[in-house]
């Protein structure tokens, strides 16, 4: 369906809202992600016709049908590849990838890491509900070890992937983590991701009400989250806790949780988050932190600027155009060894 309503006025969420019915389960975490994205787009100063959403397969990947932009609902695992081609061809577009933990970490794992390695300016939102929802409840690459699911009745015997580890391992320059029930946090991070030049990976802790309900509650539950989550912000000390009395310090080769005021630790001893540090070592440690040894990091963990693939490609083209004598196809056809037979 096309949307022919066209105005040049300032954009609002409504400009990105579709009339058709959204068919996610009631209570699905995807609704709030959609809403946060729709709230973010008008803030970017981009024409509404310049947005494209590309998705793979899975519950999350129905997303393009539910947002009024250009979109492709593509193949399982391949959204990153398709979007890579689109953005390389058309750097003028603002391209988002919507994917899930199965789509990006399993069948699309290869395209995922190579997208990151190339640093193409795409914004990738991973809906991580740690389960296959659309196929009704099989374990995914992010399902915790030992989980009993439809295809692991005796418990999984596979170590789960963490999207952050994979991102940084593939030389990622932007990684953030957000929670589906925290719309303000999502909007703030989506905005930063969209403004970041290069591949931005955002992992959303998303709830699947049907097949994996409350999977993230151990961390994100109202009563516990203050002590189990650390909201990281660039240039701010890594402090958390209901009383904001806990923090992280670098000890030996690891991050350690300390209590401010105990053992001579003061706030000034706490590590200050530097998301822009090109050295990814601390970002890697932050991304890997898990409860109960550490709080789970939420927010922008890494944000480093570097050349983008499509930018370098355009540079090569400009340089080659300026320096080649071959300006068109006729020139090409008559280049090199030509035999003039009379």
């Amino acid at each position: 369906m096309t949307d022919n309503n066209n105005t040049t006025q300032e954009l609002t969420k409504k400009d990105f809202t579709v009339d058709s019915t959204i068919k996610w389960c009631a209570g699905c975490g995807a609704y709030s992600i959609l809403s946060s994205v729709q709230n973010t787009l008008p803030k970017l100063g981009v024409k509404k016709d310049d947005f494209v959403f590309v998705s793979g397969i899975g519950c999350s990947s129905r997303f393009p049908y539910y947002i009024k932009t250009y979109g492709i609902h593509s193949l399982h695992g391949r959204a990153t590849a398709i979007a890579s081609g689109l953005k390389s061809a058309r750097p003028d577009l603002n391209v988002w990838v919507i994917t899930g933990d199965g789509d990006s970490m399993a069948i699309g794992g290869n395209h995922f890491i190579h997208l990151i390695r190339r640093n193409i300016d795409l914004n990738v939102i991973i809906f991580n509900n740690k389960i296959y929802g659309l196929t009704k409840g099989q374990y995914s690459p992010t399902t915790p070890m030992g989980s009993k699911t439809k295809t692991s009745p005796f418990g999984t015997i596979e170590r789960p992937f963490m999207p952050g580890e994979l991102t940084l391992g593939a030389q990622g320059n932007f990684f953030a983590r957000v929670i589906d029930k925290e719309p303000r946090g999502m909007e703030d991070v989506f905005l930063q991701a969209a403004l970041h030049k290069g591949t931005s990976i955002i992992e959303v802790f998303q709830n699947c009400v049907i097949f994996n309900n409350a999977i993230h509650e151990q961390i994100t539950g109202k009563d516990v989250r203050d002590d189990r989550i650390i909201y990281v912000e660039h240039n701010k000390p890594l402090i958390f806790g209901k009383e904001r009395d806990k923090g992280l310090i670098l000890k030996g080769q690891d991050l350690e949780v300390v209590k401010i005021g105990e053992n001579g630790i003061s706030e000034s001893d706490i590590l200050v988050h530097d998301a822009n540090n090109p050295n990814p070592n601390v970002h890697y440690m932050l991304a890997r932190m898990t409860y109960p040894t550490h709080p789970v990091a939420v927010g922008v963990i890494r944000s480093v600027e570097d050349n983008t693939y499509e930018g370098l490609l355009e540079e090569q083209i400009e340089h080659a155009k300026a320096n080649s004598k071959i300006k068109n196809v006729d020139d090409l056809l008559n280049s090199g060894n030509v035999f003039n037979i009379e």
Partner: protein
Amino acid sequence: MSNKNSIIELEQVVVKFAGDSGDGMQLTGMQFSDASASLGNDLSTFPDYPSEIRAPQGTIAGVSGFQVHIGHKEVQTPGDLADVLVALNPAALKANMKWVKPSATIIIDIDNFDNKHYKKAGFIEDPLHDSSLKGFNLVKAPITSLSRATVRELNIGLDNKTADKTRNQFVMGLLFWLFDRDMTMGEHFLQEKFAKKPELVKANIAVLRAGFNYAETVEAMTNQFHVNPQKGRKGKFKKISGNIAASWGLVAAAEKAGLKLFLGSYPITPASEILQELSGLRNLEVKTFQAEDEIAGICTAIGASFGGYLAATSTSGPGLALKTEAAGLAVITELPLVIVNVQRGGPSTGLPTKTEQSDLLQAIHGRSGESPCIVIAASSPGNCFEYAFEAAKLSVEHMTPVILLSDGYLANGTELWPIPQMKDLPEIKTPRVKDNDPNYQPYKRDPEKLSRFWALPGQEGLRHRIGGLEKSDVYGEVSHDPFNHQLMCQYRAEKVNRVADYIPKQDIYGSKDGGELLVIGWGGTYGALYSAVKEMREEGYDISLAQFNYIMPLPKNTDEVLGKFKKRIICELNLGQFADYLRSIYPQYKYSQFNKVQGLPFFISELKKRFKTLLEEE
């Protein structure tokens, strides 16, 4: 020049160069063919190299060859058997002895014919002293020792290892004498080739002359040959391979359509050269994307196509298999996409460096669901240009993926190709939509072609979503409606069928009004089939050829063409895929078959033998 020998004029001659992978045989072959082209000979070349890069020296596995066929008249194949074989070592001789004519001239490097080399090559008896070379005109030239001596005498500090790399020029010198050629042409080639290394120019030219002088002096060769220039052929020509021609066809189509070209691809033998060639054309705004795998190759192309580029992906058999899922997405999203499949021996890794036509049914049927797309095939190295252009044109104008079939034989073979002019190529009309077109709907169709229209992201007022889920007719919403699905399947099939209205009718070479025997071929076998049919017609046989370039859909007059002949034989380099296809569409006819799956092209001799037998049968 010596006048001691008589010069024999030949209509055509086939020369095969064979040596170790590192001996520079490909280069020598190209040098010889370039010189022939400059003299106005028609030509066709074919490299024959192992899939190992540098297999152990002196072994059969390490033999690399290059065959050149030059002619006074038109030349359509690299030739069945060689008139002249150059074998730099016993393994090269052993690997090629069965591919030479009974009276051929065989030039060997006698310095390498010793027991050590015989053992490596697997000779039990010394081939120079048993009967295996009886009847041949054997030239035993001390190529290695004379090359080394020549280089040493120059006193420019080059060692034996470097000197050995000039041996191919000794061979070239021999051939320049043998074919009564002007030496300056060979020297010119070397000056260009080694422009930055003057000592190598000096050494190679000295060895080239040494080879020439040796031939003239020792009288080891009894006759000289002369192949006259081709008559009536004028204009600008290039020696072009199928892979380069296909690459250029895509660039030409993009320029003609007013689009930019995007190639998403993954290196695979024998298609890699397309990615290599296009990656060097940034000056023409060509964007190439060397993807992480075959799947990403086609997926990036689909993304670029959605973005309004002329998008293509290049591959070979196993790669096409990996692309099938995404090809289905291009079918259902009805986006233009050119898939160039350079066929090789299969299944699986099969024979990566050898030619075959065994991906035909994969191209026609190899996708999930009812998933029709256009399939066309190129039939000579040069016309890979024309058919790549045509693939792009049909793809864009009919909004559907097109599979272009080439093969290892076309891809690596070269021929002399008349350079076309862009102004003479047909227009390509892109079915674009104007901004804010109130009537645009994603699955609204052109009433004639049944193709949908191309609205690009960034265009005002045309926002829409496409995807792999079935869509409703016209409006393009996700639809599971049973009747809608059948309608859309029929639309997609009929859209491809209607392409028959936009392609040329099938041509017959020979008896256009029908006759005794129709030889049916498709794609890359054209040269051999045409040559066999032509020779038999000259011998008085009633035989004709229909070589198909358009496979899916078939030309509209196919039934009529098949029906005009008493007998039909389908010849292909597989076990009978086009035969199966034709039988399924035109079951009313009886077809004989000639199938070959040896990784080799057809030989004209074997074709003629089969056709004659068939014509004699009642």
